[in-house]
């Protein structure tokens, strides 16, 4: 178990380091940062001053080492545009992004897993096909369209939920639903196929031969074995929700981390861009690690590998 943990943790660190390198290189591939920061009206002298001030005159390797060591201590540099610490900028937007992502994932899991189980238990029936058809439709529905539709129906017509902002928890409901919709089809299909396999397995026949209750057979014996891919994909989906919710944040005027990064790209605010990339990559790495740990808890065979 310890070896398993150590191996996964080492892998996670290597991935993070790689992302650090890539995000550092990418922002410097977009052109001379000093000129970009100084703006179109700046003189050559101004550009040189800025180059010095931001340490852009130093060798690339030195800049990189500085960026990595600073990042490791939680110092992600200052935003050019906001003139504020990037760490502050991100942490200020983190609660919105996290709440939204967790809301979305919770809705997705609470919808997808029961539906997937029901579809698997009724495999091949009309109910199964109905559920899977809805999954396909859900997958095909663009999130901006769904977002706007929900805003029109539940925000403007019925006025059940606010149409923008997150001053109250109700503000998270509609964007949470839209986010969940993007994750539900994949989770549902995985749950269904995992459950179909599990329910047809020999150990389920044994469980039935033991006279166990239907609930114990389905939820204890089958679901646990079907859950692993679902856990893994849930982690990835949460990663997407935390990072890729720009469309939804725009539709619902939520200022989360994704939106911050998107703005920063437009403004050439490279400390923010590379930090947001780093942050989101770290989120993915941490979530994957968590998923691995959860799977190890679910499946004893993984622990002894």
């Amino acid at each position, binding site marked *: 178990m310890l070896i398993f943990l150590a191996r996964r943790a080492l892998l996670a660190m290597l991935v993070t380091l790689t992302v650090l390198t890539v995000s550092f290189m990418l922002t410097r591939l977009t052109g001379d940062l000093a000129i970009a920061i100084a703006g179109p009206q700046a003189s050559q002298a101004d550009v040189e001053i800025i180059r010095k001030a931001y340490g852009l005159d130093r060798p690339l390797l030195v800049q990189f080492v500085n960026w990595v060591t600073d990042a490791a201590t939680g110092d992600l540099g200052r935003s050019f545009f906001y003139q504020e610490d990037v760490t502050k900028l991100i942490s200020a937007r983190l609660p919105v992004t996290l709440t939204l992502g967790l809301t979305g994932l919770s809705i997705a899991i609470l919808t997808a897993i029961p539906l997937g189980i029901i579809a698997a238990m009724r495999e091949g029936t009309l109910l199964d096909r109905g559920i899977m058809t809805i999954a396909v439709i859900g997958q095909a529905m663009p999130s901006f369209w769904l977002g706007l539709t929900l805003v029109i129906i539940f925000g403007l017509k019925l006025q059940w939920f606010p149409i923008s902002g997150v001053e109250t928890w109700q503000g998270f409901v509609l964007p949470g639903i839209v986010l969940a919709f993007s994750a539900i089809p994949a989770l549902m299909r995985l749950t269904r196929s995992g459950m179909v396999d599990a329910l047809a397995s020999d*150990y389920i026949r044994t469980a039935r031969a*033991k006279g166990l209750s239907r609930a114990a057979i389905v939820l204890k014996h089958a679901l646990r074995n079907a859950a692993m891919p679902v856990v893994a994909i849930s982690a990835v989906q949460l990663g997407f929700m935390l990072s890729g919710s720009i469309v939804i944040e725009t539709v619902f005027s939520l200022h989360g981390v994704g939106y911050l990064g998107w703005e920063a790209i437009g403004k050439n605010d490279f400390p923010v861009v590379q930090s947001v990339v780093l942050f989101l990559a770290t989120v993915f790495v941490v979530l994957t690690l968590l998923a691995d740990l959860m799977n190890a808890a679910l499946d004893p065979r993984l622990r002894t590998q």
Partner: protein
Amino acid sequence: MSAALLEVEGLRVGFGNGTQAVRGISLSVARGETHCLVGESGCGKSVTSLAVMNLLARGAVRTAEGIRFEGREIAGLSEREMGKLRGDAMAMIFQEPMTSLNPAYTVGSQMAEVYVRHRGGSKAAALDRAAHLLGRVGITAPGMRLAQYPHQLSGGLRQRVMIAMALMCDPKLLIADEPTTALDVTVQAQILRLLQELQHELGLAILLITHDLGIVARMAHRVSVMYAGRVVESGPAAELFGRPTHPYTHGLLACVPVPGKIARGEPLGSIPGTVPKIGPGYSGCAFRERCSQAMPACGAGDVPGREAGPEHRYECHLGADWTARLAAEAAA
């Protein structure tokens, strides 16, 4: 009340695609005796055993004139009521010890579960019983095994665990579907000996499904030979081995090498062809295509059931003395 623990009458199992896997068979298992159900692959043995437990996969349709267990009609029981019997008074072990245990739970948890389900009580008490039974089926250090997961055990150990698990609630009937087929020969012998010991000790009735006549000769009190969904011959083991009457039983026995009886280099017997799939509207004897004694009457209609001796029945157009007649003709 009849003496038989399990009585099956007119059992039929069909599948959605029209295949009829079991076509009206009857058999009975007396208390404390081993009844062997023998035949080639695909002749309906496993389906019969699953049908008795009502564990058939979805899409299978089971009908029966009667399935009585301890004199009680169980063919019409609901899934819930049947669940109360399964794992309690009637237990089952399977051919695939490698995959029959849930990989995600410890041996102890899977064994305790069935006891708590049927007998209630604490998990600790159930684990005590599990440890005792693991010891009983010849597993050393049962305490350690309880905490292990199936993937940490060998195939032979897993089958012992399955047997111990089946015994958790003191079943009266154990259905064993090819319990040793997937195991090494030495382990096979150990498991069979274990089943015999347990039978003597606990008065367990065993319905043993096998294709191995060596196992039948060793274990069976009573034998039913199945072919294409019918029991073509049945009787007490000694009687059936002493006077095999159905041509199929003959063929099966000819396939078994007997040391001392068969000379080195002499070809072993074999039955040409394979078991046919029986669809709707099939008529006549299913064995006729492969039978050395086939005659026009075999082609259509029902095959008559005949007596070959006390409790010794077979289904064939041939008279019970056909082998003797054949031998006399050959001599003349």
